[in-house]
């Protein structure tokens, strides 16, 4: 099967989803959609063995060859791992959504169309080997995320969250595009693989630092790192399957993917290591601390997701350090990138299951407020078990996969203290300390999440619904993920061989060339080393923090919410600012707009003409002036004067018609039958149109206006006439380049199979122009229709009989 086609399959299926929804009302649309991620997942699993053996696959679909635009799907360890996550978690989420979203109450076709759109976009992001198409898919994930967050668009909070996520991620995306453009200028290629091959050359280039910063903007906004984390908590207004899928398991990891993919290019840079590691670590500690403030279950998980993404990010930064260490493959520096990928897999499993459990709680009790919940353990035993497994894994407790990757994270952070370059010899000691503090908070909020929901006292009077266990269909997906959480703990090295090591090769090609070189063995027991002591410390202190939480949780409210305040302020400011700006020139009459347009036309055209020295006057190629030319000109002038000076509107319209028909006569005389024909018909129709809207012309009578001679309008009209005349003379008097008409004459029959050059230009040579022109024409038509009909509706009901069918 074609790899590029596989990316587009969800998008293609999305086209038929609305029809499925309409035709099969009694079957949940999700059942049809489920086949898509499942098939793709099975398709991608067939690559696991071959990719683990070191093979890579690539497939190209040319899009615009003259611009070197093409869809290149490249499958290696890293992209395969992400593709499996996208389709695998996607399958579970679709299955879960079938029970979560009510068939009779929800707009299912919208939901699944957006979801499938996202799936294609995300597969495109992780498989594209072409930076421009990567960007394209990247923005498509932002758009589909926007649509999914705003799925319940009647809620203000949904729309606010959707807009916020869109604003921040698209802002970063655009900057990232700038970085990509710089990279492709430096490397003279759009292919990421070819860019990586030239990494040392790129490092020397002047643009390198700019490209680095811009690409990181994209990664940090998408993965909600640093100050950009604020969009993710608000994105929790989305339906829970969406939060589990986009805002925890896949889309927010696009930034991680980007950093991992570009590590081979940027690892040489000190700035990269500092920015990635420090931003990741600060996000980790900041958001794990604020997760304890939240009382909404999804809020806790949102902050937890951001902080865990920070953890992975900091590991990738530490992974880049290996580039600078001699023989890094034999030292402790080999762990960081490995741990990053390992934790990425683990996070997808435990956080996915936790989100689904929150969805179940919301669905079965009617609230996500942790203050109202409690004591659900006996009522929802299965959900409790899954939540327990997920939380303990998140906390880093043994027998769950999170423990293993948390240990490796600590190892990697400890290794930073041994890194002697770039001032890490002085600052490096801070990293394991911050990591430890963050882990304490992580442990505490994991307990907080599960204990305040399932343990404690049940408060049935606080709950909108009577709590009971969810239907088994809804539990299947979280249970599968929970089973994975436990299984991975017992077989981590199998996971490493098939998934982690092939991905690590893509991140650290400067260290390893085959998977066999990666000498990392995961084991739960390392003996009594620093990591173990740190873990024990985390458990003890974390437990204390959790137990005392109720005593100091209210202190959070005293802290200022600076970043959100900043965002809101910027939005209001730009909103009002733009309003004020557009009010300065909008909201006036049509005549004023015409003045603006014609005025700027004169200034721009004349300015260009004279500053560029474009004016010339020569009479060498002019045709002789004949008698009937003069007659027609005279008619034209008379027609114009009548149009301007007549008192009657009807005469004015006819005068305008006279002008139009005389112009058509000119076309006839100068051998342009196509133009003449078009001009004649257009003139006929516009006269008819004028007659039709005779009654709608402005009420202010002509007498009043005619008396008032408006100087500025007079000047503008004169200037426009002069400009057109000057341009016509200048164009006639010089030939700067050979005319293209010779080419048309030669090829019109041989290449285009036509005889009438004018028409062949329209439909073939310059077909793009025509295509866009008719699109604009269509938009204009619909616009006029909308303007008139909208006014009708606003007037009142008595106009309804004029409704067009």
């Amino acid at each position, binding site marked *: 099967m074609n790899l590029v086609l596989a990316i587009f399959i969800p998008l293609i299926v999305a086209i038929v989803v609305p029809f499925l929804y309409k035709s099969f009302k009694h079957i949940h649309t999700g059942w049809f959609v489920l086949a898509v991620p499942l098939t793709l997942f099975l398709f991608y699993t067939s690559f696991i063995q071959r990719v683990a053996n070191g093979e890579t696959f690539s497939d190209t679909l040319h899009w*615009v*060859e*003259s611009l070197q635009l093409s869809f290149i799907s490249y499958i290696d360890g890293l992209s395969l791992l992400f593709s499996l996550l996208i389709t695998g978690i996607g399958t579970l989420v679709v299955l879960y959504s079938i029970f979560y979203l009510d068939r009779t109450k929800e707009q299912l076709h919208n939901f699944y169309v957006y979801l499938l759109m996202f799936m294609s976009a995300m597969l495109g992001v992780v498989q594209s080997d072409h930076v421009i198409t990567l960007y394209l898919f990247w923005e498509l994930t932002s758009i589909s995320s926007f649509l999914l967050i705003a799925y319940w668009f009647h809620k203000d909070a949904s729309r606010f969250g959707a807009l916020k996520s869109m604003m921040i991620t698209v802002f970063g995306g655009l900057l990232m595009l700038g970085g990509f453009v710089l990279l492709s200028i430096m490397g003279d290629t759009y292919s990421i693989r070819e860019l990586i091959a030239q990494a040392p050359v790129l490092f020397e280039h002047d643009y390198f630092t700019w490209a680095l910063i811009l690409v990181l903007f994209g990664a940090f906004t998408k993965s909600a790192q640093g100050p950009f984390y604020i969009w993710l908590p608000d994105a929790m207004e989305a339906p829970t399957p969406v939060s589990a899928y986009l805002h925890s398991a896949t889309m927010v990891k696009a930034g991680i993917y980007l950093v991992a993919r570009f590590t081979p290019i940027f690892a040489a840079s000190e700035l990269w290591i500092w920015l990635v590691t420090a931003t990741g670590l600060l996000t980790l500690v900041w958001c794990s601390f604020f997760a304890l403030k939240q009382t909404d279950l999804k809020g806790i998980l949102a902050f937890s997701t951001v902080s865990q993404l920070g953890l992975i990010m900091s590991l990738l930064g530490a992974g880049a350090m290996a580039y600078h260490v001699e023989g890094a493959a034999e030292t402790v520096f080999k762990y960081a990138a490995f741990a990053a990928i390992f934790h990425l897999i683990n996070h997808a499993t435990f956080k996915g299951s936790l989100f689904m459990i929150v969805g179940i709680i919301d669905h079965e009790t009617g609230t996500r407020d942790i203050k109202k919940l409690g004591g659900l353990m006996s009522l929802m035993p299965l959900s409790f078990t899954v939540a327990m497994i997920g939380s303990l894994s998140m906390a880093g407790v043994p027998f769950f996969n999170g423990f293993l990757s948390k240990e490796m994270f600590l190892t990697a952070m400890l290794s930073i203290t041994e890194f002697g370059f770039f001032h890490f010899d002085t600052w490096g000691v801070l990293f394991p300390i911050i990591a430890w503090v963050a882990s304490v908070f992580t442990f505490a909020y994991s307990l907080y999440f599960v204990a305040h929901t399932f343990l404690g006292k049940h408060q049935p009077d606080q709950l909108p619904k009577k709590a009971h266990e969810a239907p088994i269909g809804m539990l299947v997906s979280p249970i599968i993920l929970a089973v994975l959480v436990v299984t991975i703990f017992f077989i981590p090295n199998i996971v490493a061989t098939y998934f982690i090591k092939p991905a690590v090769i893509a991140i650290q090609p400067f260290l390893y060339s085959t998977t066999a070189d990666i000498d990392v063995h995961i084991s739960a027991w390392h003996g009594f080393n620093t990591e173990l002591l740190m873990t024990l410390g985390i458990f003890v202190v974390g437990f204390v923090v959790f137990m005392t939480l109720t005593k100091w949780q209210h202190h959070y409210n005293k802290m200022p919410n600076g970043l959100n305040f900043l965002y809101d302020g910027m939005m209001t400011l730009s909103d009002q600012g733009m309003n004020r700006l557009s009010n300065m020139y909008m909201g006036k009459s049509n005549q004023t707009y015409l003045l603006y347009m014609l005025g700027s036309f004169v200034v721009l055209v004349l300015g260009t003409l004279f500053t560029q020295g474009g004016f010339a006057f020569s009479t060498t190629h002019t045709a002789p002036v004949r008698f009937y030319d003069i007659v027609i000109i005279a008619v034209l002038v008379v027609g114009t004067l009548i149009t301007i000076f007549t008192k009657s509107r009807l005469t004015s319209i006819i005068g305008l018609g006279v002008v139009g028909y005389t112009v058509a006569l000119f076309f006839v005389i100068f051998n342009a*039958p*196509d133009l003449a*024909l*078009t001009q004649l*018909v*257009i003139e*006929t*129709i516009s006269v*008819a*149109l004028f*007659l*039709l*809207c005779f009654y*709608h012309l402005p009420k202010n009578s002509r007498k009043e206006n005619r008396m008032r001679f408006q100087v500025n309008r007079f000047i503008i009209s004169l200037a426009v006439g002069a400009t057109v005349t000057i341009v016509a003379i200048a164009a006639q008097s010089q030939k700067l380049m050979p005319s293209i008409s010779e080419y048309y004459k030669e090829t019109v029959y041989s290449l*285009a*199979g*036509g*005889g*009438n050059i*004018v*028409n*062949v230009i*329209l*439909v*073939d040579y310059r*077909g*793009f122009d*025509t*295509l866009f022109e*008719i*699109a604009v*024409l*269509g938009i*204009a*038509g*619909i616009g*006029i*229709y909308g303007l*008139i*009909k909208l*006014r*009708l509706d606003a007037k009142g009901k008595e*106009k309804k009989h*004029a409704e*067009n*069918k």
Partner: protein
Amino acid sequence: MLKTNDVILQFTAKIVFFIIFLFSIHIFMAGHYTPGGGFVGGLLTASAIVLLILAFDLKTVQTGFNINYRLLVATGLLLAVGTASFPMFVGEPFFTHFYDYFELPFFGNTSLHTAMLFDAGVYLVVVGVTLTIIQSIGEDE
């Protein structure tokens, strides 16, 4: 609309309509070799209908041509975009046109051209937009 009661105008309009309409089809079809094409053809068709509207009134013409002109715009755009993107599915660049000569009954040796389909899209859009505008302005009282 003004109430017209001009029998001669209405009678002539009915006949002239068909003449203009047929001429517009001819202009459209012949466009690739002689003056004409989708744009002029569409405008001519529109003007034929406008003539009817002027001779009778909007409602009468609407009962005769029960056409949703906005749908015509959409169809035309889809046809144009479809023709333009079709080559991509057979491995050719966007907007590649194909043509060949065929022996057809009645017409003899005829050249058939995908550019014609694109032009048909233009034709439909022009007719649709012109009449959408005229109709909505004319209906507005």
